[in-house]
């Protein structure tokens, strides 16, 4: 237990000088292209938030698991060990997130306009671990989310882009069950700046959201052609979706 005198903290207008005094940890689960588990951390400030997530390794073995040269079957398990971030800058009206363009090893920063979220408050209530929670719905990043928040901790930043609520988000999921986030821990920390949390590389390539989506589409098209050409006539190749699916989902 830690006693904080938050009012003594001086917030500055510039995001780089904002102090974060707590860390909120989420268990995050994605089920796009196979299920993956993530450890996510949210550092909420007064007008900005730093959200970071990294895939949780369950298996120790990664890479090519089994190859049968005679039957020509391959089994891959690719584990992405990168740590990704999302900086929500309410002052500048920007979301800045780290991404990796598939097929390129280079990390890029994608800038997107911070869209104020129009939440629909359903009036539903439930108790989660002793917290009185309320439900709200909104469409964010191509997904229809349901969140459960409590106003007993007045923090308006939530995990990923689930912001602008009257309290902290304890649970969030989308209607396809592909994204699931659950608060696991709130830890008060010594005040820390964004620079300390994420030493940003000034030389990192910056892309607009549209540029990033276009790069993805180009890559998907190439991959589809490659994959299709590898199967003989008697193989049925099924493409489930051409949508770009991550935490956000973009239907081109």
């Amino acid at each position, binding site marked *: *237990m830690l006693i904080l005198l938050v009012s003594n903290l001086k917030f500055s207008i510039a995001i780089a000088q904002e102090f974060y005094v707590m860390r909120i940890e989420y268990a995050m689960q994605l089920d796009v292209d196979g299920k993956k588990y993530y450890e996510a951390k949210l550092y909420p400030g007064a007008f900005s938030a730093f959200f970071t997530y990294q895939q949780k390794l369950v298996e120790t073995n990664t890479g090519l698991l089994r190859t049968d040269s005679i039957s020509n079957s391959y089994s891959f398990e690719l584990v992405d060990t990168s740590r990704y971030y999302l900086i929500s800058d309410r002052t500048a009206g920007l979301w800045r997130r780290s991404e990796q363009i598939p097929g390129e090893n280079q990390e890029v920063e994608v800038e997107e306009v911070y869209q104020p979220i129009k939440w629909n408050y359903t009036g539903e209530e439930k108790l989660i671990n002793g917290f009185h929670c309320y439900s709200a719905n909104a469409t964010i990043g191509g997904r229809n989310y349901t969140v459960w928040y409590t106003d007993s901790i007045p923090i308006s930043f939530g995990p990923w882009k689930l912001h602008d609520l009257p309290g902290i988000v304890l649970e969030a999921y989308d209607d396809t069950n592909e994204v699931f986030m659950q608060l696991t821990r709130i830890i008060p920390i010594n005040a820390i700046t964004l620079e300390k949390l994420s030493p940003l590389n000034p030389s990192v390539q910056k892309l607009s959201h549209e540029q990033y989506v276009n790069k993805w589409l180009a890559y998907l098209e190439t991959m589809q052609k490659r994959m299709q050409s590898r199967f003989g006539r008697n193989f049925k190749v099924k493409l489930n979706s051409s949508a770009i699916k991550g935490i956000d989902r973009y239907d081109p």
Partner: protein
Amino acid sequence: MTRNAILLTFLILIFHIDSVAQSVSVIKIISVMDSLPIPGAQVSIFSNEGKLITHEITNEIGEATLDLSLYAADDWLRVQSLGHKRFINSIASIRLAFKDYIENVLALEPDEIILPEVIIQSQAPYRLTSDTITFNASQYQRGNENRLEDLLKNIPGFEVDENGTISYGNKKIEHLMIDGVNFLDQGYALMSKNMPVFPISQVQVLKRYQKTKALKDLIRSENIALNIVLKDSYRSVWFGKSHLGISPKFRDDWDFGLDGMKLGNKLKLYTIQNYNTLGYQYSAPLFENWKGALTEETSKIEPEKSYLFHLPKPSLPFGLPNRMVGNQAQQLHTLSTLFPIHKKWQIKLTGNFSNYNKAFDHLKVSLFDLLDEKIEHIEQINQESKNSESYFSLQILGEPSDKSEIKFYSAYQVEKSQNFSDYKLNQEGFPSQIMRNTLQSAHVLHWSKRLSENKAWMLQALAFTKNQPESSFLVDKNHISENVQLISEQFQGDINSKWIIRKDSRKTITYVIGQVIGSETLRSSQTYRANWFQTYLEGSVTQKISNTISLEGQLGFHLYYNKSQLTRFGNYQSGKLLLAEPRLKLTKQRTDDLHLSLSYSQIQWKPKLIDRVADTIFQGNNSWIIGNTAKKIGSSKIFAFSLNKGNLLTGNAWQTLLYFVWFKDILSTNSGIEPNKIIYEKIWTKHPLEGALQYQYDYFIDILSSNIRFNSRFQFSKTKHQLNGLEQPWNKHLGIKYGAEWRSAFSGNFNFHGGASRQHTIYVENNKRGVKQGFKNQVDNEYFMDLYFQLWDKLNISIKQLTIHFENGDDSRQWFHDFGMNIQFNPKSQKLRWEFIGYNLLNNNKLNRFARTEWGNYTSTYIIRPRQLLVKLNLQI
């Protein structure tokens, strides 16, 4: 005063001078302590009933925009920010307070808050440990789940197919347990289709589940099991669900179900009762999974699909009449119990009765053109079947000590099926009927013991019997009636024992020594009787040299003995065979783009093996007995080398595979007599030594680019026979095949896939006297084109065409055209799958010219009538 505030105040004064407070737009939140603005503060308005109406967050200068005139006087304004005391007051009070001020400022008092470290571990949606993933059921419930499979479909990673089989991460769940109790072994689909959701607390995925405790951590199991953890309040009490639904529109449509369950310390019991006329399949096969359940093998027997017909069928071509098939009745009654008979012994009883009907139809049209004579043949088949299955099993489970386990399992099943087909042959009706009643039983004894950390042994004895009388009745075009009754009985049994020793050092080495002794008898009324016996001994060593290189070695000795008899004709055969089978495989795997594999295996028959054949041939009143005693010598060696460069995910790739087979099989007949095929002439020839030596060499190259694929194959083999101890000249065979395929990117509404290949084959063959019999050059050309149309999300049409042209050196030519069309409509819910398949074969040989055309219209899976609105009553206890 800020510039905005001045401007805003000015505007308010000009336009709304009488109602300043009623139209407040900007509220500024500051701290009492230092009068600095509070950014990120939360400004909310609630109704008098406490419902959130709107919510704003202050910007970097502490301002939030709210038009207070929009809200009722008895609504409430709440402002809160971390580190400050919460401010809350009615809209009426706020308006009054702001009335005398031109800047609307609210100052919050600082608050020394105590922010505890909060850990919400118990409510996390899932929890990971090394081999277990635990999902909290409540986190995945949306309120409309009725059965276990509904809940599982909500959890990412789970899939449940229409038969109730569960997969997690594309891997089939082998066992489903409730609080660690395995009621139904692999027949768990009964649970997934029926068990209610409300008593479930957690769903656990157990990876690397090893059912045999003695082998745990000794043999790496790839099986996945599912454990359902019940809520505490549902342990040791009765609970269940019941439903009754009746359609107001169709009175014969109804659905009734009653499930009850009690998992006490002593008695564990689960019962399911279902009866419906809608075709809902609550039942699942139990008996066919018995073997898989006890030997950790995946059952390969897939349950048959049911076909539901609720809509009148559309008219088929040629004005042929259709027959409406009504609703399909389904019944299920089952009871499973588990109770202790001693501290270390338990009894598990399962009884099950299920009943279901199914039906399908198809139309087939054939046209023959044989030497200018045309024959038209139209066949329509409507087929119905009625099936019932009764099942009973008894299991005795014991754990005499912590390290040993004994299981005895005995199961019986009676399966009755009645198939009725209504043929339409040239528009004349001829029925046929097949009845089959099968009695099966399975008996298993399993005994395992852990000797030490690295040693264990396991003994399994399996016995299986099957009695299947079958009768059929058929009337064909020529009014020939036939009533055939075939009775067959089968007994099959294995005693299977394994000794497992694992040695752990810096590298892992595993030795497995196994032995199987088994026999099988197949008896039928007049046909065939066979007994066989097999025993083998094998050991294997797997040495993992590094993460990417492994070396596998295996040595096995197999002894076979078989005796078979054809009772009607009196033929009988017996033989013994001993095989030595060493294998060696070296693999090197790279995760990026290179993969190398080298393997060698050999099967060696021992020279002293004897294979005896004795034939008795009856012909009228005369009979001849011909006896052979043969010595069989043989071996085969297989050498394979493969190299793959690139991988399918990251770029272009090629692969090459070299395959070499050396095969030798020589039969030496000691008595030296063998009947000629024309037995009346009583011509006997001697073949003291006959056999074959064969080399085969295959080489493949595949080159894959973005959407074009080239492949080629070079094949060479030569075979040499021995006759009367003399080696004959080599017969040779050379084949070259090459081709290319071209595909579209499969991204739009129209896609295609086409290709062509050509194969040249050259045969050089000699007869047994060494005279060259022929030189044959054959060319096969193959062309295909597939077109895919996706009209919208739910309707797909694919058209496939294949043409093969054979051209042989002996002036033999054939053209083969194959055409298929497939239409699928929303396969997930309303199923319509219509297939049109046809082919044309034109044989253009000089002496045998004919053409044959056949096409079929298959509607094996059909439209389901839209779900009826049932007046439904659900009860949960």
